[in-house]
């Protein structure tokens, strides 16, 4: 529907069953880049769960959801229901009962119908001996894929079309040549000629109809392609900072955002920041920064630039709207020479200039952190395969070799960023998965009266979501639920906080298409 808020207008509509393994020609996504599926790990009341939602790629479409119970509990039913963000929505439709996957006693599966583009929260409810627990998993419904017609289906349809075409002409010929004659009467030559003329004329009309049908199909396809979700456009520049050093200015210059009658809802802080901005040096991936630019106005954000090596950088900016719609804006940036000084514009900013040191043992990579502690990726021996849960478990050990304790870093034990070397995939992960916690919070706090824009955002901003509990000590082993969406060479950056310092470790991964 035209005029829908937050993604719906851009996303238009469409649906695909991923299981059909259809050819895909375009791949973009909303939150994150090139990684359309949602991974969530958390608690549904007393039940720890891992939820994976496979994006249908089209809206309206069917998303596949799987719910894995992570602890042995006596569970009766697993219910799922997608709830649209709009506060004017009436009661949600009845929940679906997820079916247990045969051969796996802890895995449940269901199909989710996402009928309108925009932001949803999927309510996952577990009913069991310990009572009922619910988890909210934010999901963005946007059109991201364009499918090619598979050859066997195309050939089959062509054959049927030809049959119908010739059949129609034969019927026309029979209608003109014989149908008005009394039974048994033979058509004369004049009627036969007329029948052939009618057949020829019908062939021309039908051919025109087919050409028209083809044009219609092309028009639908073009409209669909132009409606594929595109994140807001942004532009980044680097200038001199007043007190020395460099300042990065990122401007959201998309007309759908700068327009006063914009359909987008306002931004809300995620982990205490309106924007999480990442810089990744192109090709070599050996320069990385995670910054939190400060808003100068509703379109312009600024942050001081750490002393990254010069070169061309890819910029990814994560923002979350009040509707719960999260998106990653993409831009490029040229850094001429390293800044001589750096005064972080935000205390949560962190960066890393070195490439990862590859371990001799492929199954274990260790990164030396700036405070002398070590961050080790316990990845095991198995190869990392597309769409199979990746072993993203990391352990921090103190310089004395003992297990380290962590401080919350923007409310989380750790953050992980994953980029493919060609920039086609970029994802920002937490131990809770790919979801935006601000989006989740927006759905928790949403009230029917939140029809005025900004009301919900104010309540969210009032809650200090970013800092976490000061002084809380968290265990030094962290894991991230995720499966790589595409094969290729990836770099991972894992960030933790110790003794008030942001520490960043880098790792490499080769991801295969199959085992």
């Amino acid at each position: 529907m035209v005029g829908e808020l937050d993604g719906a207008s851009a996303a238009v509509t469409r649906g695909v069953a991923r299981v059909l393994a259809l050819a895909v020609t375009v791949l973009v996504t909303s939150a994150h880049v090139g990684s359309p599926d949602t991974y969530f790990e958390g608690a549904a009341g007393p039940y720890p769960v891992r939820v994976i939602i496979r994006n249908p790629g089209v809206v309206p479409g069917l998303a596949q959801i799987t719910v894995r119970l992570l602890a042995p509990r006596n569970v009766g039913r697993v219910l799922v229901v997608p709830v649209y963000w709009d506060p004017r929505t009436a009661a949600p439709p009845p929940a679906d009962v997820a079916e247990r996957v045969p051969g796996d006693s802890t895995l449940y599966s269901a199909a989710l119908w996402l009928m309108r583009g925009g932001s949803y929260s999927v309510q996952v409810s577990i009913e069991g001996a310990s009572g009922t627990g619910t988890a909210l998993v934010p999901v963005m419904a946007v059109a991201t894929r364009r499918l090619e017609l598979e050859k066997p289906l195309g050939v089959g349809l062509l054959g049927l079309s030809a049959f119908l075409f010739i059949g129609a002409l034969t019927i026309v010929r029979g209608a003109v040549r014989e149908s008005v004659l009394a039974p048994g009467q033979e058509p004369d030559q004049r009627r036969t000629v007329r029948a052939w003329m009618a057949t020829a004329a019908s062939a021309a009309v039908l051919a025109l109809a087919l050409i028209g049908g083809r044009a219609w199909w092309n028009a639908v396809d073009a409209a669909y392609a132009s409606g594929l979700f595109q994140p807001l456009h942004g532009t980044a520049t680097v200038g001199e900072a007043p007190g020395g050093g460099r300042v990065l200015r990122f401007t959201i210059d998309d007309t759908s955002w700068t327009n006063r009658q914009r359909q987008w809802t306002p931004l809300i802080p995620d982990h205490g920041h309106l924007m999480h901005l990442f810089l990744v040096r192109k090709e070599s991936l050996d320069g990385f920064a995670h910054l939190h630019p400060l808003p100068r106005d509703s379109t312009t954000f600024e942050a001081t630039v750490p002393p990254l090596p010069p070169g061309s950088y890819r910029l990814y900016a994560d923002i979350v709207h009040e509707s719960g719609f999260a998106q990653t804006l993409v831009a490029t940036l040229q850094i001429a020479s390293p800044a001589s000084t750096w005064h972080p514009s935000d205390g949560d900013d962190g960066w890393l200039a070195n490439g990862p040191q590859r371990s001799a043992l492929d199954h274990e990579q260790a990164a030396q952190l700036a405070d002398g502690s070590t961050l080790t990726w316990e990845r095991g021996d198995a190869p990392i395969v597309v769409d199979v849960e990746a072993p993203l478990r990391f352990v921090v050990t103190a310089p004395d070799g003992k297990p380290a304790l962590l401080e919350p870093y923007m409310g989380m034990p750790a953050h992980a960023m994953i980029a493919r070397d060609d920039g086609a995939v970029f994802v920002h992960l937490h131990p809770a998965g790919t979801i935006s916690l601000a989006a989740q919070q927006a759905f928790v706090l949403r009230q029917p009266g939140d029809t005025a824009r900004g009301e919900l955002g104010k309540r969210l901003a009032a809650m200090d979501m970013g800092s976490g509990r000061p002084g809380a000590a968290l265990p030094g082993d962290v894991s991230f639920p995720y499966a790589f969406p595409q094969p290729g060479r990836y770099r991972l950056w894992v960030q933790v906080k110790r003794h008030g310092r942001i520490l960043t470790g880098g790792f490499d991964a080769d991801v295969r298409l199959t085992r």
Partner: protein
Amino acid sequence: MTAAVAPAARAAAVPWYVTAALVASTSALVGVLWDISWHRSIGRDTFWTPAHLAIYLGGVLAGVSCGWLVLKTTFAGTPDERAAGVSFWGFRGPLGAWVCIWGAIAMIASAPFDNWWHNAYGLDVKVLSPPHTILALGFTGIQLGALLLVLSLQNRDPTNAGRRTYGVLLAYGAAILLQNVAIMGIEQVGFANLGHNGLYYKVAAGAFPVLLMAVARAARLPWPATTAAAFYMALSLVAIWILQLFPATPKLAPVFNPVTHMVAPPFPLLLVAPAAALDLLMRRVGPGRDWQLSVAAGLAFLAVFLGVQWFFTEFLLSSHARNFFFGVDQWDYSSRLGPWRYQFWRIQGDPVTPQGLAIAAGLAAASARIGLWWGNWMARVQR
């Protein structure tokens, strides 16, 4: 059956394959009306909903019965039966049977195409899509085939004793085609809220006279177009009265309008009024002056249709119509209800103007002329 010796009592007998084709036509129509209501009330569907099954049952019933008729006529038919058919790649059968078979195959062909379409562009984003058009062509083929089967019986009836039976069946078959047109044009002529904009009258003027004039010319009834229009309205009314009896719950988010029962189709157009005018005109003008008749019929159709619908749509938007009988003010579960439901839509952007009415009159006259050509041919179909 030897037509020359058929006694009057048997003249009106309706062969099994005609019954099958008419039942198939009805089944497809019922399925379509049911499916539209399903999408507006429940939302979620699979291939196996009863509405889809009714549509495809129509295709299968028509395809199998007419396929059997063709095989029987070709390989085991009497010389008379074979003589009363048209040839198709060496086979013989009535023209209507071939059209039914073609329609059934088109319906079957549309199914995998529609499935792919849903995967590629979304679940039923629009009613009018290329695969739905092929499906519609398919069931229209079946409905047209049924009409042709009845026509060949009527036109071969030597004593004319069965003209009432065949005429009523023809009017019923035409009513199903009128329903098809109304369903295809639901976004232009479906809702009463559209009754004061220009497109409403242009679409109606272009779409309905062709069918009404064709049946008026071909069916041997005193009031053929009126009877067809009455059947068309009766089909809609039955659908309205039955559907809204059944409880339904929306099963797809977002639900903006929590409906509790199946959403009824819009109240039918009052086509009996312009159809009666066309019937009267046909009697007065008679055959042989089809060009003049077309112009007069186009003008008469538009004048009566405009006069009736302009005020009747006002009534349908009033509180007096919001009851079980008229079944109005029923909206999709995904509609955000607002004052728009009692207002005329698009009257600023597309008002009814003299220029627009002139275009509509031209369309109605052209539609009537095509209907007469078609009707003249149908009045002569014997096989």
